[in-house]
């Protein structure tokens, strides 16, 4: 399961699946409402949310501009604290390194806390291939793992599942025999996973933010699973996208505060945990051996490009939670583990246009995402930049569309042509017009009239009315 999701289906098929999935749409819609409300409430409570966003943007810009410095500092500190650091250029390099660590430790059972980066590189498959048992410990991720289903949201991965489906999965895969009450389901998961935690020899976590000055890895959770993963197994591996870093603890404060508020409207989540790697002498909890894997996997290409600010993303999903397109099609339709507006921006950057060419168009450019982003990434503008690359620079769009746009340019830059066609529009559309309405239009209008009517162009253009009025005025004088 790489960055791609349901790649056996085309974009159109995935969209249709999404639109026809009533439960998912209901679930997504109510989740969006709740999460959006939470974020707005949290912002209102602060009173100066815009200042917070500006500060977040300042910190992220500075950090990415000096990413080499901070990554260097981070790695020095992790080493000083007794950890190993591996810089991985590709997914393959990261997986190979982690597989090696697991093999060397003769690891049988790997317990993981939620990590989107590990999804991005298909780490679970890589580890399963060498015979390790991998257990996802985030409740949502565990449900998906049992059901062999990809995440559909970067914060609430199992958003598309309902309780009955979850009950069925637990029953089929784990012999669960109780009701579909969320509390009972969660308690069952707690009991099952507790055993896994205590038996695991390797723990793998992601990283929300690394603190460069101390070499500390910070994880933000509500369940407490990341704390368990980092406290119990003897060997621990943390994997981070190379941009997930802050200069000092003081910036950690700001970004964590932005993350938890923007993601779920919480002032802080239940557990924010920062650990510096191996346990100290006499310390019993914490790993004996610690590895940090820092992953590029296409990110460095984004630096220095017009998309650099996409690397400011702190994975809060605020843009996903306000996106009306996401609401109707769900996460899987994007065909990427990173869905929604931020997914539509970064997926083509990380994995190329070839298989994700539709994503930049899966937006009405309504800018709700840009407005919601806690670090002010101009998401809708970046979607336009993608379109510009696809259309203008790489000329990947259909020839007919390119001809139409060239025609548009000609039309809109030649007032005489514009005026003539404006006058002609009514006549041109006459064959399809009835009672001043077009219900089944020709060409591209067909896609419009599938769902709604189009008014026929007015009897008189504005400019002819204006001309006539000016004439009458002169006449009156």
């Amino acid at each position, binding site marked *: 399961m790489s960055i791609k999701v349901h790649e056996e289906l085309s974009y159109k098929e995935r969209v249709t699946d999404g639109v026809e999935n009533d439960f998912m749409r209901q679930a997504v819609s*109510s*989740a969006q409402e709740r999460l959006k409300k939470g974020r707005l409430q949290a912002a209102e409570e*602060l009173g100066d949310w815009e*200042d*917070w966003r500006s*500060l977040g943007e*300042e*910190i992220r810009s500075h950090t990415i501009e*000096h*990413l*080499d410095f901070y*990554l260097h500092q981070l790695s*020095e500190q992790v080493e000083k*604290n007794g950890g*190993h*650091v591996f810089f991985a*250029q590709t997914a393959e390099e990261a997986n190979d390194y982690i597989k090696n660590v697991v093999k060397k430790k003769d690891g049988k059972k790997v317990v993981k806390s939620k990590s989107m980066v590990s999804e991005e590189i298909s780490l679970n498959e890589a580890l399963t291939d060498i015979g390790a048992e991998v257990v996802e410990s985030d409740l*949502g991720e565990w*449900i998906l793992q049992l059901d062999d289903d990809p995440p559909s949201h970067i914060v*609430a*991965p*199992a*958003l598309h599942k*309902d*309780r009955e489906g979850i009950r069925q999965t637990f029953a089929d895969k784990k012999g669960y025999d109780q009701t579909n009450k*969320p509390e009972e389901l*969660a308690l069952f998961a707690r009991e099952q*996973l507790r055993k896994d935690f205590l038996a695991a020899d390797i723990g793998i976590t992601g990283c929300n933010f690394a603190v460069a000055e101390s070499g*500390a890895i910070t994880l933000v959770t509500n*369940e*407490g*699973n990341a704390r*368990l993963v*980092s*406290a119990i197994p003897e060997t621990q591996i943390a994997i981070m996208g190379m941009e997930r870093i802050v200069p000092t*603890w*003081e910036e*950690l*404060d700001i970004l*964590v*505060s932005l993350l938890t508020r923007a993601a779920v409207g*919480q*002032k*802080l989540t*239940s*557990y*924010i*945990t*920062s650990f*510096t790697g*191996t*346990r*100290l*002498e006499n*310390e*019993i*909890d914490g790993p004996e051996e610690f590895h940090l894997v820092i992953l*590029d996997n296409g990110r460095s*290409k984004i*630096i220095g490009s017009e998309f650099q600010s996409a690397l400011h993303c702190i994975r809060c999903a605020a843009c996903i939670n306000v996106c009306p397109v996401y609401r109707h099609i769900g996460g899987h339709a994007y065909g990427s583990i990173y869905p929604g507006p931020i997914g539509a921006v970064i997926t083509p950057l990380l994995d190329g246009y070839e298989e994700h060419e539709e994503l930049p168009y899966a937006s009405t450019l309504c800018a709700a995402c840009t407005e919601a982003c806690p670090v002010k990434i101009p998401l809708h503008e970046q979607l336009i930049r993608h379109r510009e690359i696809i259309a203008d620079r790489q000329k990947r769009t259909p020839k007919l569309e390119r001809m139409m746009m060239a025609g548009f340019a000609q039309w809109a830059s030649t007032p005489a042509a514009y005026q003539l066609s404006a006058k002609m529009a009514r006549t041109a559309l006459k064959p399809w017009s009835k009672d001043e309405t077009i219900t089944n239009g020709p060409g591209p209008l067909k896609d419009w009239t599938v769902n709604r009517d189009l008014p026929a162009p007015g009897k008189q253009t504005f400019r002819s009315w204006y001309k006539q009025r000016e004439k009458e005025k002169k006449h009156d004088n």
Partner: protein
Amino acid sequence: MTISNRDTFLQHVAANLGRDVIVEGVKRPDWKHKPHLNVFKNHNVEQLIDELEKQCENIHTDFRRTTKENLHQTLQEVLDAYDADSIVYAYDERNEVYGLDSYFAELNNDGKDAYEWSTSNKEKNRQKVERADVGLTFSDITLAESGTVTLLNDEYNARTISLLPESYIAIIPKETIVPRMTQATTMIHQMQQENNHVPSCVSFVTGPSNSADIEMNLIVGVHGPVRAAYIVVD
């Protein structure tokens, strides 16, 4: 300890930034915006305690306030409410100052089980902490805004004490209360600057564990404690 592939990796990054790799001399700028410094800026301790109490409701945490003299009694009330017979606690100099040592001894005399985390006996620690009804620690820095206790974990205040038992109790000395995370991270930042060292694990704990992964229903108590209580001590 090893660092692998760093040079080429950082060269890639720097090349895209249009320059050579920089490994020293970068200073954080003085940020233009500082909204975090304004939160509860002029609050006195009493006001901060009020905020903390209010926030406890949002985070499903039992809030109590007591004095050193009455701490035994308050603690007993909480333990009774949680129907708890076994406690795992961290060695802490404050245990004696707050009279907890004598209280734990009393509990053990009464046939209950109060266990102090050992720095050497891993097996016993695990066994105890996994089955304990309550984990108990002091809060090192308490954040009023979010209702958070900050634990500077070490060999005494072990990570799992506040995590594996069914309930968690934090003893909050009044003087540990600050407005928000800002003050805590500033302190930790200073530790780093002064000693080039911070605790091996810093845990910001805000109430019991919870999840909303099933149909966005809030479930309290998933992997960590099911209940949490904060006892503010004057």
